[in-house]
């Protein structure tokens, strides 16, 4: 998969996940992107194996009296893809863009 296939928004989402954030709304907050963009991006990343999502154990959540959450993690393939993309953007002098939204 060539780096240019990763759109800027998708790249930003991946980058936030690489920084260790795990929940959809966190990604929304960190990237500043609208939820209508972030969730499709997450779904696309997951389908390409760059991100994996899990649902929290239901009993644990129920025990704490809160709803269970879905959390997203970047996969090793995702990290590789992100590194390639950032390197590629770096060649173009655009690396800053990939840092977008990560403070």
């Amino acid at each position, binding site marked *: 998969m060539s780096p240019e296939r990763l759109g800027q928004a998708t790249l930003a989402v991946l980058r936030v996940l690489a920084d260790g954030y795990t*929940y959809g709304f966190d990604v*929304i907050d960190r990237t500043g992107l*609208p*939820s209508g963009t972030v969730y*499709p991006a997450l779904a696309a990343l997951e389908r390409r194996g760059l991100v994996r999502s899990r649902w929290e154990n239901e009993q644990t959540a129920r025990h704490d009296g*809160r*709803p*269970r*959450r*879905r959390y997203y993690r970047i996969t090793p393939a995702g990290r590789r893809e992100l590194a390639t993309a950032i390197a590629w953007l770096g060649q173009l002098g655009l690396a800053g863009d990939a840092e977008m939204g990560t403070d």
Partner: protein
Amino acid sequence: MGDHGGLDRAVTSQRFLRIVAALVPAPRRSRWLEEWSSELWYYRRRLERGESRLAAEMALWARMLGAVPHALWVLGEEWMIGSVHRDLGLAVRTLAKRPGYVLAAVGTLAMGIAASTMLFSIVNAVMFRPLPYPDARELVRVFETHLAQGIRRGSVTGATFYDWKASNRVFEDLAAYQSGWKYIVDAGDGATLVPGARVFPNMFALLGSNAALGRTFFPQENHPDDQQSAVISHALWQSLFGGTPDVVGRSILLEGAPRTIVGVMPPGFAFPDDDVGIWIPYNLGEAGRANRRSHLLRVVARLRSGVDVPQAERELGTIMQDLVSQFPQEMEGAGVSIVSWHESLVGDVRGTLLLLFGGVTTLLAVACLNVAGLGVARSRRREREMAVRIALGAGSLRISRLLLTESVVIAAAAGVIGGLIAVWGTPVLLAYAPIDLPRVAEVTADTRVLAFTVLVSAGAALVSGIFPALRLSSSRIGDALRRGSRGATSGDRWYLDGLVTAEIALSVALLAGAGLLTRSYANLTAVDPGFSGDRVITISILPTAVAYPDVTAQTALFDRVLERVQALPGVTSAGLVTELPFTVPASTWSFLPEGSTPQFDQIGVHWNPASTGYFQTMGIPLRRGRLFDDRDRIGDGRVVVIDESTARRFLGDRDPLGVRIRMAPEGELYTIIGVVGAVRQESLREDVQLTMYTPHWDTEPWRRDKTLAVKTDLSLAGFAAAVSAEVKAVDPGLALDRVGPLVDIVSDSLDGERFRLYLMLTFAILALALTVVGLYGTLAYVVSGRRRELAIRSALGARPSSLAAMVFRRSTTLALMGGAAGVLLAIAASPLVRALLFGVAPVDPITLAAVVAVLGLAAVAGTTLPALRVVRLNAATVLSEE
């Protein structure tokens, strides 16, 4: 309270999410909902810790609204990747089992799409395609108006033109031109007639157009290098010079005088009309620049950037007022009107195109409704299939999607077929188009036309598919299994009735439009033009100014022509006229009886030099006095024959014979010697033209072109050629034009009327046919759905005729409702046709009555078969089916 409010908000947002979740396809719905509610739960908790109540609430809602695009995205994704292939395959397989339905639906839609695409490609070329000049939006036509005389778009005098040019601040530049005639061009191998224009030397610079080869004119007036130059069109370069690159610098004879070609314009350049092949520089002499009486110039201007048409019109209006007060004698009542160049080209045909486009759109709508009706009836028959699908787990959305996919397949097929028909059919249609439709040479299928076709097909898919899809709500399907294939539901009937009523209404409106045009056309053909073209051929003879510079030479030529032609076998009579009816826009002169004071706003009279034989040949009756004879050639006094409308208008009850008149305030005196019948000079639509005739030898040197009219008792075939040969025998260098029967000229003048009449009639008939089919379909469907009920009734003793009456009642109700709506629609749409009508009001009771009668017949046609089916119903068979 705080906790309680939080709970309320939680409940509200949960409710909102549930509603949005309905968009998400079932398999992914619960997970989607869970993720969103959970994230929102945490989000709210976080907000409640920090933000103020209001800020928290707003942030929450802002975040929550994001669920909508996400849900739509999931829906779209599911649709796209999940099942498009499967759905398409299924749709194609399902449709393949119903070739009759597919044929009907695809055929109907393809016809509608083809017709509307053809019309659109014409509308596109004429109205929307950008003009072939840079920044064409800034180009305007400037007219002089004399509203009191009904002149709204008049030409301009030389003096006024230069006054405008000197004192305005709204135009970057102005230029004038003259066009509308043909030049005799000789490139060395015989004379050809080429439509040409005389343009001010700055015209090409003003238009911003450059030559493809060589140069255009130097913009300075009277440039020494442009005294005898000419610029030719790409088309003429190809046809007359075979496209040779060394054409620049070549010398040709134009009207017998040498000229040098200095440039060739690029293909696609046209000015002012599509057919102009040659441009020559036009310089007004000293006298022309000072002339305030002869309105000879057509004016084009380029607006300064930032100036719009009303602004320019205001400023020029002020300038014009000053001029009028300065020169009241010459300019009393003069005003200014400015329209964009585009408007001046297409303004006249816009009405026709709008009407036709409206007509074709209506036809397309009827076609879509018809296919929708087919679809509803068909989906009803497929209820069991659908019920089984639902029982096996298909959601109602899935079912609707399946149906919509089927209509997309049908509409796509129809779009391809219709588009192809349009590509091939448009040139055929244009062959019948009136010749004066501007810019039709540019009609081709471009991307805009393609986009239109795609859009129309998509619309057709939606309109024809949405009703059947809506009909299949899951709750209803639930009943289907229980009900079996028995009665049609009342819901179906509402849908079908609605569709058919709408079809009837649209068809009636279309019929009314076509009916008005029919009446209008009939009125036009019934108009007496004032002459009879029976057994008459005409030939325009165009001598050059070089060979025939003065009236004496011209008269000698035409006398010899007449002499030879009259000696031909089979010639009953022959005559000459300067402006044959229907061929040249008439120009006018004054009509000033001796001793009367000139009135400035007086209506003009057409001066048309003609020979005595002209009146006899054309069947124009002599009412009083006499026609010209050879005695009039030698006498000093000049003679004139006027038409009866001129006599009535200017002389009232006074005996016109012997009255002496002038054509200009300081002009010669003419004695009226005869009165002839009035003639419609411009067209059948226009009133009779006030006309005065002088003998053909009493004319002005520049009016040297004449038309020869010859009446024969031989067959017309070959006769025109024989006469042409005889004319050529007098002088082989004469150019001849428009050779043919006079009746063709009259008939050609109605081309435009026929074009729109035939198209509208075609649309209306097609729409009506579709509507009859639709009516038949819905009645047949209802009858078949109620077979059981009808069978029981007939078993209980109802007479077949009463059952048939039931069917007829239903059809009558539909026809009445649709008809009434259609009449209202027709009345509402009447402004569309108003300007195109002749002798009939836009809301015409007779037309509407005729339309209603046609509708009645159509309704009977559509009802008879279903009614017969009811009559033949065999109760025992039907009931035993159960």
